[in-house]
């Protein structure tokens, strides 16, 4: 007698066998959802190799002997973007300062005084030369903005969203009368901005290239000079490593790592969470925190024509006088880019330090961050405050799933 299973297969009609085979092939071809810190699905072997080598650069710790400083905020990308894996948020907070000149109005990023990023650490050689522990704060500044460390997961997808998509979401004069008037920021060369809390930086590559110099004091072919110390030249002898301190290849690999990091997969929603997701839209949060954006054509297939569930419109919105700090580019002190909510839960689950929310970390909880919304978002905040406790809990559960 034949074994039962063999007999069963033996009696399957030929068409069923083909269907079963097709089903198995489909399952085998379905890519697994990337884990936190994994690359995007669909990268070529060469791109995966760049990602893996880029992670090494992202985690590379610099010392004064390898180019760190003389001014810096951190000695490695992954020293700040660290929790729970490289690319995640961190507990470090940095300082930005600018001057808002109401005649115009015009924003002076105080570059001639070391702005807009005022580095908080110095190398021993710079301390010995100038006796300082951090870059001097420019007295001309009218605003002082603390900036927390965001995660960078999914930023390659945000970079691939076409300008036209962002422009189509803008409503600078609130023509539709909904009280929300998002507008674009622009870099000094006119390109549309999207990265940074004030959306000044137009492209992920610019952000990454600039960060090496401004955050670590590492010069590169993209930014070949160290800048100044509060506007004054760097004293001779304190930065002995010749420029550029890293190669174009290291820069490219770091960029590939950040660009190819997959967005964090949202947690599966409970029934309550699903109700919270609806409430999110009902009280108008989704007007600025637009749930999905779509990328355009892109030379990297894994980034082309993909939906990114980022919960942002990448536009500037007036958040009210209470949150106002610095101007930057076209952004007034009260205007901030809608913070992407993808990965929001990671800031709550941070492994070192206390959870911090909002651009400057003043809110210890997600709920407090919502309550501190002002300006254009005041109406949504008031609707949040007016929710029943059960509805509020459901909304927060949804937010904690992102």
């Amino acid at each position, binding site marked *: 007698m034949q074994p039962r299973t063999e007999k069963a297969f033996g009696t399957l009609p030929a068409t069923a066998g083909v269907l079963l085979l097709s089903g198995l092939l489909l399952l085998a071809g379905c890519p697994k959802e990337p884990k936190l810190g994994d690359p995007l699905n669909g990268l070529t072997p060469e791109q995966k190799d760049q990602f893996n080598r880029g992670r090494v650069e992202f985690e590379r710790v610099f010392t004064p002997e390898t180019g760190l400083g003389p001014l810096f905020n951190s000695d490695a990308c992954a020293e700040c973007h660290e929790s729970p894996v490289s690319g995640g948020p961190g507990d470090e907070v940095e300082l930005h300062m600018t001057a808002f000149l109401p005649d115009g109005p015009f924003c002076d*990023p105080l570059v001639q005084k070391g702005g807009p990023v005022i580095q908080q650490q110095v190398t021993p050689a710079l301390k010995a030369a100038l006796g300082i522990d951090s870059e001097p704060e420019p007295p001309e500044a009218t605003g002082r903005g603390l900036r927390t460390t965001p995660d960078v997961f999914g930023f390659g997808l945000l970079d691939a969203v076409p300008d036209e998509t962002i*422009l189509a979401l803008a409503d600078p004069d609130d*023509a539709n009368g909904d009280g*929300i008037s998002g507008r674009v920021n622009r870099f000094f060369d*006119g390109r549309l901005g999207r990265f940074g809390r004030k959306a000044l930086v137009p492209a992920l590559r610019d952000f990454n*290239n*600039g960060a090496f110099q401004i955050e670590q004091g590492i010069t590169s072919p993209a*930014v070949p*000079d160290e800048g100044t110390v509060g506007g004054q030249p760097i004293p001779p002898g304190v930065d002995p490593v010749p420029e550029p301190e890293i190669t174009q290849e290291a820069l490219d690999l770091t960029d590939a790592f950040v660009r190819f990091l997959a967005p964090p997969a949202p947690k599966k929603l409970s029934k309550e969470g699903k109700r919270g997701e609806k409430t999110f839209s009902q009280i108008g949060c989704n007007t600025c925190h637009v749930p999905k954006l779509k990328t355009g054509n892109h030379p990297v297939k894994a980034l082309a024509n993909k939906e990114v569930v980022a919960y942002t419109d990448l536009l500037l919105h007036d958040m009210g006088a209470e949150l106002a700090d610095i101007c930057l580019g076209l952004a007034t002190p009260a205007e901030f880019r809608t913070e992407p909510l993808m990965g929001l839960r990671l800031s709550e689950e941070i492994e070192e330090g206390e959870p911090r929310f909002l651009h400057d970390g003043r809110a210890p909880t997600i709920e407090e961050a919502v309550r501190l919304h002002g300006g254009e978002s005041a109406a949504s905040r008031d609707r949040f405050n007016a929710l029943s406790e059960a509805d509020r809990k459901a909304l927060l559960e949804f937010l904690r799933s992102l």
Partner: protein
Amino acid sequence: VDTKARTLEVMTGVGHALRLERMKVDPACEISHAGKKAALRDLKRGQVIRIQYRTTPEGKMAQAIETVEIPGGGGK
């Protein structure tokens, strides 16, 4: 823009690593604004410009300056 000294300061940079470039303007520098020939005094603070320059022993010298129109838009 300092029309008397024929110098200008240009904000540039990469990401948040911003730089202020100080340049002299060559007397023969061609300046255009909105596609028409213009003068140094026509350039205003905050305007986006594209500059061709050469490096001289005295520093950077602008050879051609054109203003760049920024597209608007919106429709939410």
